[in-house]
């Protein structure tokens, strides 16, 4: 058992589950999407990205790429949130909530790809 694989697998799967938790619910209802959940998703995704730094394998490079996509999507969602609540002052209208949730949905897709790749790697290298 490789501790590095355990830690990385943990964070990749946690990123997906948290992301899913934030994503489920009515699309445009701000009550179904909590800000703390988004915060946790961003932090865990960043950790997963940094953990893949310096991995020279092909699989490592692809995983780094999917994590970067997820982080990019989530940061976009965070900026939309901050702009809506603090800058424009419009608050979480259904339209804003829908766009935040759809951005996090994109990030979830990237996280799904990460997990699938992780599973493939595990299946192929049965050690």
């Amino acid at each position, binding site marked *: 058992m490789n501790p590095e694989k355990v830690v990385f697998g943990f964070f990749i799967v946690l990123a997906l589950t948290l992301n899913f938790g934030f994503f489920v619910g009515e699309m445009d209802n701000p009550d179904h999407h909590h800000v703390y959940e988004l*915060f946790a998703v961003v932090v865990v995704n*960043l950790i997963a990205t940094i953990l893949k730094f310096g991995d020279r394998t092909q699989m490592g490079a692809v995983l780094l790429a999917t994590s970067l996509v997820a982080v990019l999507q989530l940061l976009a969602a965070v900026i939309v949130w901050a702009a809506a609540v603090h800058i424009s002052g419009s608050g979480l209208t259904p339209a804003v909530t829908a766009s935040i949730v759809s951005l996090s949905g994109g990030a979830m897709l990237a996280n799904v790809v990460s997990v699938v790749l992780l599973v493939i790697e595990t299946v192929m290298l049965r050690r």
Partner: protein
Amino acid sequence: MDNIFFLAFRRMRQPLLLLLLTHAFATLGLTLIPGQDGVGNTWYMDFFHAFYFVSFMSTTIGFGEIPYEFTDAQRLWVIFSLYASVVVWFYAIGNLLSLVQDRSFRQALTERKFARRIRHQQQPFYIICGYGETGSALVRSLTDRHQSVVTIDTKQERIDALELENLRQYVPALCADARRPRHLIEAGLKHPLCKGVVALTNVNKVNLKIAITSKLLHPDIKVICRADSHDIEANMRSFGTNYIINPFDTFALHLATALQAPGLYVLQEWLAGSRQQQLKEPVYPPKSGHWIVCGYGRFGRAVYHRLKDEGIEPVVVEARPGLTGVPDGLYIEGRGTEAITLEEAGIRKAVGLVAGTDDDANNLSIIMTARELSSDLFVVARQSNLDNEQIFDAADADIVMHPSSIIADKIRVLLGTPLLHDFMGLAMYEEEEWTCSLVKKIALSLNTQLPAVWELKIDQNSALAVSNSLARGRVVSLSDLLRDPSNREHELECIPLLINRHGTSMMLPAPTTNIKQDDRLLFCGKINAADRMRWTLQNYHALDYVLTGETKPQGWVWKLLKRRKARVER
């Protein structure tokens, strides 16, 4: 090549993770702890403001407590997170800075820069491994003739010395171990424009490794190696090293040439020597009589045996005969710098002296002492260090031999003008009168300048016009090439030395010789003669003028006009 980025990222992984965690923790805490707004209502900080606050807190910028003044609970949290995040922040920055200063990281950066420069090399180049005394002489000699060179050496101070050197061309240099194939490849071993590898380090094993790497990875290029022992020489020859140079034998052969055939020696000095020198008068060393050889190291030994082959029985003076071994004949123990030792060796009746120790100061001292004891002495001095040039000039020895330059010149000839090497090899078999008359001929046509030597091949590349004319069946003779393309009555100031046709060589070809396709020619003469000859070789109109004496119309319109004029005249 992307190692550097992986290295940087791998090193930054831990600091970045720590930074991220402390920031996340501090931000989260700030949003959970209740605060008070301006009028005393309970108020929770949102993520936006919390992240803003943590950002300027951890970088110690500190804009103050915003948007409302903190409660004591919040301040307590800030105290903890402040110390944690500031420490982690400095740790991350320090880690990045130490990475930039890291030796292996810097080495990786330089190697990468070096390899990229070599990849974009546009001109043919040679790789020279070992930038010592010989290496630097060779680099100077090659760059003086506009050849591109790349060097590798294991010592950084030598690479620094190269950068301070005032060379005509930029010489990319890498401080690395040439034994590792990776470094040779970085230096351009597999580059299609790489023409040769020269291994000049003073360790035989290293030279051997470089030679075998080069022959395996790029079999077509020339490999020239320095070898100190005959054993290693045979080893190198076994896998096809093109030329192997033993510095001691080369030096002794040079000296023997000077003694045996002064004409040939002068010819060699003129044609193969370095260009800065003036034409020197021939010297005639005494061929018989009493000779003294000071120093019986590897050089001294080679010289001793050469002199013996010439029928001279020299007396050897050596300071540490226990270390160097003793000759079969007479020898005296001592340094040779004192009058007593020299007297003992018979300086009063001597005709020649070889100051051949490996110490320049001792050699000079030997010469000065010997000159005081015997005024008309033929002196051969060995100069080890190039920096001592002025004092050796002042000492006014009859022949000064700088082994490193001798070897450097020899290699330069092998690389740049291999036909000259063939020519000198054939000239050795000629009579002394033949060489002397050639020397006179060169001296007459060139005054005091040293001649430039160049070779060319009659092919599409270097002689387009001539090659195409030959293909169309025209006859071009050597005398045509020797005409000045701006005035065919004048002759170019150069002498054809050799024609090589399908591997057979003709020495000093007659001007009436006809040129054939794929001939290789060797000339010596003034450097501007080479430029002028290139016109005849490459330009159809210049060639036409040189062959027929008339200038043909060059453009289509003028050709048409001329044809019409010819018809009208008829």
